[in-house]
């Protein structure tokens, strides 16, 4: 047994000395291979007496198991060292920039349209629409602008050279023609908003020949001006995401009677406009009870049906909430402006996660 222990020490020393996996395998074959030193000793067991075998057998098995374990441990160690050596050569400079990825954005007008859609959806409105090139009837006459009336002049209308229904077609000066299309097309109760492009022949810092409006129309048998006030107050609080003090003032629109404008309280701090505080008033929406002539023009009886209408300037609401200083920039397709004032595609306005 003395020589077994010497053999173990000798082989273990060789295992420890193995420099790589190939050398280790050579040690393994020399010790445990078919003709290895340990295997030869195992073979000698057959010639031993049962007494001798009883002690030599377990000793040899123990030796073999110990060497197996030592080899496995050394193998793992060598493999780890080899992997480390390889990985050390595979270094990259992780401070190099990532691949450029263009960043998209949603235009503020679109965002605000969807914000308004989310708020009015919650109040039970559905979206209706109409074309940008309108008939004179839908844009004016049906809305109680009599032909030749000076109220038409105030609209700075763009006319087309082409005619529709026997009169020069107009670029709609407001989204109100959708009121007419809706009332002619469906029976009350009606609760719609209409959003889109509108046009007036006007151009300066706060007027562009094209702009956007959101129209609202409610027609049923009981909606009165108190509902109009409630609806618009709820809207501005939801839109500006804070309590906003409002003021209703009488005004005149041909297609509403009584007519009103609603102002919100604001102040100017430096270049910034702050809604909901201060001592000034800013008009944000024109509105009123739908004029009986308009209801009549759509084939309904104004003694039976009643309701309200309103019209917001979308671009202006966007400016008030998000602080763009100049309306003309909205339509310039300037990538810097679009990136700066635009919204991420995943900021989808809704009342659960917020409007923007």
């Amino acid at each position, binding site marked *: 047994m003395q020589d077994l222990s010497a053999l173990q020490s000798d082989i273990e020393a060789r295992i420890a000395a193995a420099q790589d996996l190939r050398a280790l395998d050579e040690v393994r074959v020399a010790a445990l291979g078919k003709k290895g030193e340990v295997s030869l000793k195992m073979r000698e067991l057959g010639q031993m007496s049962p007494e001798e075998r009883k002690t030599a057998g377990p000793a040899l098995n123990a030796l073999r198991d110990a060497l197996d374990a030592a080899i496995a441990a050394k193998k793992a160690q060598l493999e780890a060292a080899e992997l480390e050596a390889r990985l050390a050569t595979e270094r990259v400079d992780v401070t190099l920039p990532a691949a450029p990825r263009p960043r*998209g954005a949603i235009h503020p007008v679109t965002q605000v349209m969807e914000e308004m859609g989310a708020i009015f959806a919650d109040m039970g409105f559905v979206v209706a629409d109409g074309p940008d090139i309108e008939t004179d009837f839908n844009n004016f006459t049906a809305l109680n602008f009599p032909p030749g009336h000076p109220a038409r*002049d105030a609209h700075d209308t*763009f006319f087309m050279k082409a005619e529709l229904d026997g009169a020069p077609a107009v670029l709609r000066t407001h989204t109100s023609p959708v009121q007419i299309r809706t009332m002619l097309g469906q029976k009350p109760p009606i609760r719609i908003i209409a959003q889109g492009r509108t046009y007036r022949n006007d151009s300066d810092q706060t007027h562009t020949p094209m702009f956007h409006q959101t129209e609202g129309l409610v027609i049923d048998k009981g909606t009165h001006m108190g509902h109009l006030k409630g609806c618009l107050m709820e809207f501005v609080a939801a839109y500006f995401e804070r309590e906003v003090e409002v003021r*209703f003032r009488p*005004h005149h629109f041909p297609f509403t009677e009584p007519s009103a404008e609603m102002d919100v309280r604001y102040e100017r701090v430096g270049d910034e406009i702050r809604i909901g505080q201060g001592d000034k008033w800013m008009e944000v929406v024109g509105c009123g009870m739908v004029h009986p002539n308009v209801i009549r023009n759509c084939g309904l009886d104004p003694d039976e049906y009643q309701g309200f209408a309103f019209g917001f300037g979308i671009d202006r609401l966007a400016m008030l909430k998000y602080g763009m200083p100049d309306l003309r920039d909205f339509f310039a397709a300037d990538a810097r402006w679009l990136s700066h004032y635009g919204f991420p*595609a995943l900021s989808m306005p809704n009342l659960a996660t917020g409007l923007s």
Partner: protein
Amino acid sequence: MKFTLSWLKDHLKTGKSAAEIAEVMTMAGLEVEDVRDPAQSLSAFSVAKVLAANPHPDADRLQVCTVETKDGTKQIVCGAPNARAGISVVYAPVGAYVPGIDVTLKQAKIRGVESAGMMCSAKELELGDDHDGIIELSGDPAVGTPAVEALSADPVIDFEVTPNRPDWLGVRGIARDLAAAGAGELFTDTLNAVAGHYDSPVGVTIDAPDACPVFLGRYVRGVKNGPSPDWLQKRLRAIGLRPINALVDITNYLSYDRARPLHVFDAAKLKGNIVARLGRDGETLLALDGKSYALDSDMCVIADESGPVGLGGVMGGEDTGCTDGTTDVFIECAYFDPNRTARTGRRTGIVSDARYRFERGVDTGFLVDGMELATAMVIEFCGGEASHVVQAGEIPDGPAPVDFHLHEVRRLTGLEISEKRILDILHHLGCSAAGSGEHVAVQPPTWRRDIVQSADLVEEIARIEGFDALQAVPLAREERLAPIYSEPAERARRARRALAADGWLEAVTWSFCKSETAALLGGEDGLDVANPVSSELSTMRPTPLAHLIPALQWNADRGAPHARLFEVGPGWTAPGEGGQHAIAAGAVRGEAVRAWRGGGSPDVFDMKAAALLALEAAGAPVNSLQTAPDAPFWWHPGRSGSLNLGMNPLARFGEIHPGVLRDLDVDGPVLAFEVFLDKIPPSKRKPAKTRPSLAKADQTPVVRDFAFIKDAETPAETLVRAAAGADKALIDSVTVFDLYEGEGLPQGKTSIAIAVRIQPQGKALTEAELEGLSKKIVAAVEKATGATLRG
């Protein structure tokens, strides 16, 4: 419309300040635009006296004045020609803000001479347009008297008159509404008739009663024209009018005091009698503005025996106007049809106070009184003797009474207002009510032709009661199961969000463009705007690309050469219904992005991918689309295509034709896509949202690669479809993974390598079965394209 506080107080007994009056006006629907109170803007200014004025040593036009001021004796350099010793002036000390020139005064040296302060002109104080010299105060006011006192400067209120309320174009009409709204008490009008002493030597007839239903005329002889009184001149100046002479000033004054335009002819210049008739082609009129206008048969003309002497309701003639030498006058007080007046105004382009009032409708109840008032003022200021009034035509009837149920107030506004209060408001506004209880007949006054039905009365009552009284009521929530966005709106929304998520910037650009641009991009005729804002925006665009393509160059010039712009918006093919199309379009310059790993340039296939992305987001059946190289002429003929559903193009993509870019002055290449959202077939509404259960394949898919040699002209899509169609049950998908042309291949041939993914169903395929399927694929491709398997 501007007026002053003291002018208002001629009609309204009130102790309110200008700011308080403005607040009442705003809340009664008279939208105040500006209140200018000189007591505030003039607080720094005071009376001073010029003691001496000597020539400036170094400037011909300047004088060095010694001025006695509240701050002691000062030396002030002044450029006004009327600066001289002895006059009382308005003094602005150093540190004062001078509103008319927007300057805060500093101690200064003017051409080497010290000057401490300033002596002001009316324009510098915003009290008028007079800038010929400094203000000379009359009545020798004490030095140091506040300027606002010495000038008796009056607060001026400016407000917007809505087109339904011509009565607000006169101060009395404003006073009436203010009295109704509780701001004071309306003074009763006491107008004394002026006796006539003789028959007017000028007669009047009407040939066009539709255009001019009534014409009152009156002769006043022996007048002496000259400047009008100070108080009147001051009022006219305060509202921005220039005093001319007494006779002209009287007509201007009554236009603003009573919304009653008048005209005064110099009777000596009239030939014979006056007739109100329609114009005749070929006639011209030299009007008071010094310009000559061609008349036509739609215009109402006032003529004498020599021809036209005025455009009815718009402007008088220069040749018969009053001058300082006028001795006999003929006063016109008439009614002109609003629509015709508006048309004449538009056609001639004349903007006058008379037109502004007549086209909105003047008070038919104030013709006789207006004539009396005008006559009295002429005699008071200019003397003379009046004739009897001559009248042609009949004064139009007043407005019809309105049948009014008082409960309409509650029905339309929710306001609870007592019967007494309702009738009280109506009475204040000049209405009379007959009957009692719920149902009354309301007679609107002659100046309120806008009141024709009960909603109009409801507005008056709510307006005067005040909209603050309206109780805000939330809208009842309605049960609704359908989505609020229509399918087209939702499609546009999804396409937009998908493109933005894919790195495109959404722009919103003008719906109109240059007509040359529209033509270059395949625009149809018949879409021109008749009155464009500029030639750059003169026709309705065929596609959003009309602005996106030029915008790429604009951005590149400003350091953003890689901008990826898109827009979801309209393009037009015709003006009428169905001619407006919802288009999602995008464009980018074909310029390589520089990056250390290699950036690459956008190409045709990036555009195809973007178009497919938008189409899929919008719900188009993208797997049923066929690609064809058939984009219109303005695309690159070899590098563009359409994605078609049957015969219907749903999208186009590729490079824009270099010739088009050259004409648009844009450096190419430019790559673009257009998706025609309105051409996508409507989705089939399914009754339930449940999806069919997932059929998970139980076998591992097998991929087999094939390389074919095809004619270069043969579309790859044809080959891919043929391979995929060889066995629809087993073949899951076909992808192209390599293309090769050139050495080793005959001229005009392309090698295309495809990977066919085979999905066995139920049991694995044997090698023999797979071999059979491969043969089927090769045969199908050969049959469809003539391509052969590459050996």
